[in-house]
């Protein structure tokens, strides 16, 4: 058991640190949930890609560095420690790309990945539907066979980044009408253009009013066969197979929380080290370290060939609750100035509130932990 880095890893870290020091914008970019900020973040993706830092864990031929999971974690630590901008490409990089690596054709990868790496194409996810939040298997949006492709119709919602993104991916019903006994059957994984005829994007404001996601109304939107991933009808299996892999470790990287805890300690010290909040500040430091080490252990298991299964639910509940607690501590340190806080603390708090809801609510995650990790009987929930 060890926590040391190889000379190569240390060199990689140093290279990343140096590049970031030279390139990270001195002033924070405008919020990526605004049109102006989205464009600025897209430019930043291009700059990252030019330095070959946008997708370090991908093979070189798609714009990456072939970094293993340890280097990816190191890069993330440096990235957040440098105060670099949020990643507007994250839906594509974290959700779609792993699926492409596992299930797409080489032609698809070569076509889709490079423009994702440069930020030329920004991807939105299109999973949820108004009646299907946590209960994804009850999706009803359909893809109907047509000459050379499919016609998508229906409604998607909570599509993050879709207000300003270029393309989207999701699963659609292609099989027979929903069979209540087997709702996971007959779903197909597709990519489509958000500017194609028949697509209407209606931005939805989140709590702070920013259009962090959108509704998509789809009316016979044509999708060529080349944009189907895997076999038609296998969409559920394909979508689920990527949620069970390293995504559980990559949904929120430890670097983000190490950097946030660092900012919190600075805020606490700047305010005179309020003894009444000391324990919560310490818990933020401890929690970031725990998450870093938990992830290091998961990465080591992953690297040794183990699958990341239901334990990603431990990870999800932990970071989402940690993130809210950290921001609440920051706002309490700000006291009656919290109301007018924006940026890292104010917007960060609003963002953190989504954590326990999205990517599988924490209630569902706790059910999974209880049933799959502790072996408790399935209940009616």
């Amino acid at each position, binding site marked *: 058991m060890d926590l040391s880095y190889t000379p190569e890893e240390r060199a990689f870290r140093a290279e990343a640190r140096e590049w970031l020091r030279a390139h990270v914008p001195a002033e924070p970019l405008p919020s990526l949930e605004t049109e102006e900020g989205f464009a600025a973040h897209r430019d930043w993706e291009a700059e990252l890609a030019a330095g070959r830092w946008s997708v370090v864990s991908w093979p070189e031929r798609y714009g990456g560095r072939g970094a293993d999971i340890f280097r990816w974690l190191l890069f993330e630590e440096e990235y957040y420690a440098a105060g670099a901008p949020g990643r507007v490409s994250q839906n594509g990089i974290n959700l779609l790309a792993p699926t492409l690596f596992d299930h797409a054709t080489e032609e698809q990868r070569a076509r889709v990945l490079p423009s994702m790496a440069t930020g030329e194409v920004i991807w939105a996810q299109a999973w949820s539907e108004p009646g299907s939040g946590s209960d994804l298997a009850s999706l009803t949006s359909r893809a109907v066979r047509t000459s050379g492709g499919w016609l998508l119709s229906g409604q998607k919602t909570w599509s993050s980044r879709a207000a300003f993104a270029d393309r989207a991916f999701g699963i659609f019903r292609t099989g027979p009408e929903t069979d209540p006994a087997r709702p996971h059957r007959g779903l197909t994984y597709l990519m489509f253009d958000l500017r194609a005829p028949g697509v209407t994007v209606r931005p*939805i404001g989140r*709590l702070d009013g920013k259009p962090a996601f959108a509704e998509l109304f789809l009316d016979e939107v044509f999708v060529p066969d080349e944009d189907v991933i895997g076999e038609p009808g296998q969409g559920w299996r394909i979508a689920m197979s990527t949620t069970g892999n390293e995504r559980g470790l990559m949904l929120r990287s430890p670097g983000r929380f190490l950097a946030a805890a660092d900012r919190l300690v600075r805020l606490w010290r700047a305010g005179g080290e309020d003894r009444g909040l000391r324990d919560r500040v310490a818990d933020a430091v401890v929690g970031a370290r725990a998450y870093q080490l938990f992830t290091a252990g998961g990465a080591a298991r992953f690297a040794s060939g183990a699958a990341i299964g239901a334990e990603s639910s431990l990870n999800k509940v932990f970071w989402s609750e940690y993130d809210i607690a950290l921001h609440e501590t920051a706002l309490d340190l700000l*006291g009656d100035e919290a109301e007018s806080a924006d940026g890292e603390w104010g917007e960060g708090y609003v963002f953190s509130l989504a954590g326990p809801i999205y990517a599988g609510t924490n209630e569902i995650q706790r059910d999974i932990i209880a049933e799959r990790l502790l072996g408790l009987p399935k209940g009616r929930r």
Partner: protein
Amino acid sequence: MRFLATREQRDFARSLDAMLTAARTPTAIRAWAAGDPSPGRALWSRLAEVGVFALAVPEPYEGMGPLPVELATAFVELGRHGMPGPVVETVAASALLAELARRGEDGPAKRLLPGIAMGGTIATLPPAVGGPGYALDADVADLVLAVRGDELWLAPGHEGVRASADPARRLALPAPGGELLAAGPAVTAAVAQAGGWAVLATAAQSLGVGLTLLDRTVAYAKERRQFGTEIGSFQAVKHRLADTLIALEFARPLLFGAALTFESADLAAAKVTAGEAACTAARTALQIHGAIGYTEELDLSLWLRKARPLRDAWGTPSWCRARVLDAYDGGS
């Protein structure tokens, strides 16, 4: 000892509830946030007609007060309906002027209190303790007061408006200068008295905000189906809602107890408890609604965004807890 609302108090609450329900406050709240205070002002006048802004104003100045229990009763309803505007600050201003008058300085009271009591004057002033000194909704108010040391000033308007986490709250500093209204120890005492009223009103508003968040979430949990059943039948959902009800129902007696005793520790206890209960209700409401609750277009957001600013306004939880222990000298 009959620690129960009287029939009149219950009727007062019910009539406010009916009026505010009919007035569809969400429209007024959204307009207020968008910079159009006219629907809010119209509501303000109707509240004044039934005496809401006269409750901290003594009779010689067209008031009905002091009636802190009735004030708490009214402010629970204002919170439940999300009434926008400097309602707390207007009450605080009226209490400040009334206390000044009681201490012999009745010039400002004579001149300004009737307008407040009758609803023609929307007043504001910055909280007396700590904070950046913003006067809520100073851009809309007719009367901006400012306390500088032991001097009370009528400020000549406000400086630039700053955003709050709740878009229906507009933050601005009083403009410097203006007219000196009073000075000396009477001002200091009156500011303290005004703080007590503001704490009470804010606590009541918080409780009301929490009650609405709970009510709407219970209603949603009965309707929304996932996995083939109403989500309100899941034990995790039920228990979280039960805990939220407990938090609110134990804040309620503290609120009315504080209205009766008006003691600093009781006021602070009510404020911290109601403020935290409303925040608990907000977290519960958001989590149980899920993504739809995270949107500004659902009216739920109008209450969700209010819980935390109210918790911190006119005395943060830390400040309140310190007051509780400062004054503590043994049980019962």
